[in-house]
Structure formats: C-alpha cells, structure tokens
C-alpha cells in the first residue's frame, strides 16, 4: 500500500516556541489514523499543517502527492484532495444547510446549481439530515451542525479527511451521532486522520494510533497500543483519559 500522507521530521515554530520538533509518520490509503495526546503536544498544529493552514519550517510533508514544503505548491489542488472539519463547525451562518454544502462545488468546481443540489442531497442524506436541507445553521444542534460540516467537506469528494477535535464542543449524546457518521465514513473506505480525545472511538475505529508528546511522536502503532502501551507516558495518558 502506498502512503497518502507522509511526514518526515516535520518542524514548526510560532516565534521562538517550537511546537513540532521533528514529527515522522505515514498514513496509507483507506486507513484511519487517530492522533492523541495532551493539549499543547502539537497534534492540532500537525493536522493544520497537512491542509497548509500553517506552513512547516523543516522536514517534508507529502499529502496526496502534494509536497507541502514547496513554496510554489498548488493550494487549490491540495484543497480539492483534502477535506477538513473543525471543532467549531465553521458553517456559513447566512446560508442554509444545502447552500453551505453547494457553495464549494459551485464556486470551485463550477458545477451548475441543479447538479450541485443533487450532490448536496446525497451527502446530506449520508449524514442523516435530509429533512434539514433548508434550515439555517442556528436552527440546528451542535451535533447536527458538525454533521453538516462533514457533509460540506464530502461534497468536494476529498481523498483524505482531516478531523480536528470535532466532538470536543459537544455533549456525549451529540458526540455519539457525529462519531457514528465518522464510523460510517471509515467503513466506506475513506482515508481519515483525526485529532481526538475520544479514546473509545480511537480504539474501535483507528487502524493506527499516534501518541504525540512535546511536539514529537512518542509512541505509534495499531489501536492495540491503547490496551497495552509500551511507554509509561502513554500508559499514564490513557489512565488519565479514562478518569474523565
């Protein structure tokens, strides 16, 4: 299997503060990778670098064939291949659910309105919100908004989906409905990288678990490492997470 995501010794600083201190890992096509770790370990920054919301300062990062360290990178092509979902949903509040989903296909791919609507119907049905097509974001619960955000990314048919703590702002019940959508995506074969605090979900769905600590990958392996960690730091992290 060919890696669709390949990070080699990636470094990133904000001013004098070094956040990523040489991160190396790869994710293959169709895999689900969960990045876990304490706040400040650099996991969200690593994810944001993968969609070039942040630029890296050292090492190399190849995402779906795009070399992110290149200054002449084709960002439009990168963003066609990569979808990202944020903790704060970031739906466009002045547009309906359908319009939110149709916007990028229409503007970026130049798809006609009627056809874009068909695409929107399909992806919105996939996240279970067919009856909310013409609602505005403020009329939806947090979990529903997050599912729309996922649909909005799916409408662009990405090869890779990034999830940045997408359930952190939700209560347990709403978390469940979002995780079920993500689980279905994983079952459909989508390549996914998620930064998450949901250990149960990582254990169940992730093919690869990456434990980050102090800007580096501290331990990495199949989801088995969550049951039998080999470093004491990961063991501590898991037991702390279990207490919450």
């Amino acid at each position: 299997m060919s890696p669709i995501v390949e990070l080699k010794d990636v470094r990133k600083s904000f001013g004098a503060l070094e956040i990523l201190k040489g991160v190396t890992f790869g994710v293959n096509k169709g895999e689900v990778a969960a990045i876990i770790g304490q706040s400040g370990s650099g996991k969200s920054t690593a994810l944001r670098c993968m969609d070039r919301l942040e630029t890296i300062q050292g090492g190399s990062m190849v995402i779906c064939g795009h070399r992110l360290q290149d200054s002449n990178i084709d960002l439009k092509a990168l963003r066609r291949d990569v979808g990202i979902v944020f903790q704060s949903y970031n739906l466009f509040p002045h547009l309906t659910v359908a319009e939110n989903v149709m916007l990028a296909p229409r503007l970026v791919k130049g798809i006609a309105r009627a056809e874009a609507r068909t695409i929107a119907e399909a992806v919105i049905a996939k996240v279970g919100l067919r009856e909310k097509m013409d609602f505005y974001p403020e009329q939806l619960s947090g979990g529903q908004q997050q599912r729309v955000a996922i649909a909005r990314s799916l409408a662009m048919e990405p090869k890779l989906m990034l999830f940045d703590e997408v359930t952190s702002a939700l209560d347990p019940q709403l978390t469940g409905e979002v995780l079920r959508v993500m689980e279905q995506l994983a079952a459909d074969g989508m390549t996914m990288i998620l930064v998450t605090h949901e250990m149960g979900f990582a254990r169940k769905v992730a093919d690869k678990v990456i434990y980050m600590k102090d800007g580096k990958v501290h331990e990495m392996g199949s989801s088995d490492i969550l049951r039998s960690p080999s470093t004491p730091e990961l063991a501590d992290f898991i037991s702390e997470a279990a207490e919450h």
Partner: protein
Amino acid sequence: MTYEFDFAAVLEYWPLLVQGTWTTLRLTFFCTIFGILIGAFCAVVRTGGPGWARHLVGLYVEFIRNTPLLIQSYFLIFGIASMGVRLPILVGATIALTINIGAYTTEIVRAGIESIHRGQLEAAECLGLSRVQTYLHVVIRPALERVYPALASQYVLLMLASSILSSVGVEELFGMANRIQSDTFRNFEVFVVLGVLYLILAVIVRAGFALLGLALFPRRRKLGTPL
C-alpha cells in the same frame, strides 16, 4: 400675540415642494447606491488590501470624517469650478455627498467585516475558494447583514444632511422651502411643512431599506433574528 396662521399661502407653492422633494429623493437614491459600492469596496481594501492601499483608504476616511460636509461641498462645486472644471450643480452635489457617505459607509462595513470570525475564512480557504470568492460569498454578505441597521440609520442621516447642499445652490427640498419663505414671509408655516415633509421622507427611506433588507437577506426574512 395675534398671529394668523396661513398654511394655504405656503401650500400654494406645492409644485416647488414637490420638485424639491423629488430632488432630495433622487440625490439620496444615487448617493445610497454609489455610497454603498464605494464603502464596501474601501472596506474590503482596508481590511484585506496591500499596506499602501489600506493607508490610502484610511487617509480618505479620516479626512472626510474630520472635515465639515459643507466645506467638502464648497470645495467640490466652487473650488474645482475655479480651476476650470464645471460640473452641473446636481452632479457636483451627488459626487460630494457620495464621497462623504462613502467614508462613513467604509467604517461601518469594516466593522462588519472584522466581526466575521477567522474560522469562516479558514473554512472557505480549505474548501478551495479563492480570496475574491471568499470575500464575495463568505465575508461581505454576512458583514452587510450584521451592520445593516447601522447602515440604514446612516443613510437616513444622509438624506437629512443633504439639506446642507441648498447652500451651494442645489434646489432640493430645503432650498425650495427657503425660496417659498422669502416669497411669503410665512417662516413658521414653511418650516412646519418642511419638517413634516422631511419626516415623511425619512419614513420612506427607512421603509425602502427595510424592504431591501428583506430581499437581500433571506435568512433574516425567514428567522427574523440578527446574525
């Protein structure tokens, strides 16, 4: 005190009042359209343009907001005329008022743009929208929706302030009223009528903005909540 009210003497001049009202309305209409276009453009430049352009817009906004409209109008109509550029008076007045309202609009729209959360821009960027597309579809529309009530007030103010232009010779409502006053010496009656007419005009302008708002912002029309 024995003063006999004689409104009939004033209302006899109704053709002048109608003409003045019409001029005021036209002036307000064109200044509103051009003012919003200039304001939206300058607000975009001021928030997302290159450094030199931001400063240029800043200079324009501060210069206009800190000098009297009367002087700006005199400058544009008489100052420039003395250099040999002769504009029809109504055109000069429209330009002066547009430049003035454009500066205020810039500041209002800028506040709206700055209220758009960074996450919105990131989401648009990650979906592959270009900068221009992002501004058009994700920034400007919700920004305008947010500051729309403030904009509407500002443009009612513009309509009222256009009365100043009578002093550069524009025959708008106030200018006409002045003529009637000097013909009839019925000062009290003239200004009562004038006040009522301005009040009606203000209601019309507000209603116009309200209707336009319903057309422009379907979310607001449907939910009735501020964004």
